[in-house]
């Protein structure tokens, strides 16, 4: 799977970090999303899907 983030849409809520901290982090500067792993292992699929749905800005997409 491939994870795509849209930093322009990101509002720094951090829902993604809380859902999948191995995949997402936030900039210390402005709190926007930092994608740590664009192709995380399949075992993290559920957590990444949570991040996609829980992001209040719709800034995360997942391609399989």
């Amino acid at each position, binding site marked *: 799977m491939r994870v795509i983030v849209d930093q322009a849409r990101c509002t720094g809520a951090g*829902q993604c970090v809380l859902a999948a901290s191995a995949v997402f982090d*936030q900039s210390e500067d402005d709190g926007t999303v930092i994608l740590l792993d664009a192709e995380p292992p399949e075992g993290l699929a559920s957590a990444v899907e949570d991040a996609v*749905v*829980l992001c*209040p800005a*719709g800034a995360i997409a997942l391609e399989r």
Partner: protein
Amino acid sequence: MIVGASAAGLATATSLRRFGFEGVIRLVEREAAPVTERPPLSKEILGGAPDSAASSAQWDRLVSQEIELVASADAVDLDLARREVVLADGAREGFDHLVIASGVRPRQLEGGETAGVHTLRNLPDAIRLRAELVARRELLVVGGGLLGFEIAAAAAELGARVRLVRSGPDALAAAVGPSAAARLEGMHRERSVDVVTGFRARRADRSGERVEVTFDDGSAESADVVFSSIGSVPNVEWLEGSGLDVTDGVRADAFCAVAPGVWAAGDVARWEHPGLGRATRWEFRTHAAEQGVAVARNILGAATPFSPIPFRWTDQFGQRVQFAGYATPDAIEEVARTGDDPLRELRTYSIGERLVGVIGWNAAAAVSRHRALLAPYPA
């Protein structure tokens, strides 16, 4: 069937699919398509961003997930015995499971609709309001919660002359904590927003080209444009004949179940919060999706009580304030860091050894780190 295709309804629908539900998922939505995200409406959209800045990613994905959407369809009744939702056109839609995600609408000031008082719930509202907020026009904001202050800030940045009148200081303090509230109020004053406290609006009337608002003490104030954000009314009228408890939202248990095979999620759901030990209803954007996901899991048999930690944020004058958890009077407040940058601050709230709340000012990464450590409830 899911009644309501905003944040909670969409999260429920997409989560049912991703958790493996292969049956029919029908989303019934009162508004005409598309439903947008609401947080950008009082921020980027008023600031002149294109409509796409408010688009909902979950909405855009509905077709590819084989989720049926029935838009411009108003649910007007629920027949629990026959397990049918009745729509305004008379159609009766049967369901095996029903998710009530019909949300809330702005409370209207008496006379407000006739007088042209603006409220904000959807993109057409935001576009209509933005057209009025041009330089030197006078805007009166009635209501001192986050929405009122966000509108005031956006309008001030557009050059409007803004006065915000609120009945008391509590709404803002409850939303962002007392110190951030004081700081935001100071910023508004610095930007010439006149914040007036202690007056509750009673009604609005047209006054020539202007709108006049009358307050409880009989005083009146007029402006070119009036915006009111005086709370929300849960959209539960359609449930009044159903036998369900619809006092301040639709009542649900700790699993978000309203009745067998009937669930509630989002702004409309007054559910039994296991951690707080009482029923509560939250109008927070992140909560809506979290509860939608929880409902999807429980529909599929997870039987997991829903015990979230609240999170809310506001953007005003380029500042982002985020508040997770609780800042109750019995909690000890500590300023965790200021660093060199006065535009950045973090405050934590602890009861004994338990971290129960964190409020950050332009400190999102640190807020998230503390959120991961929060005790699930303040007691």
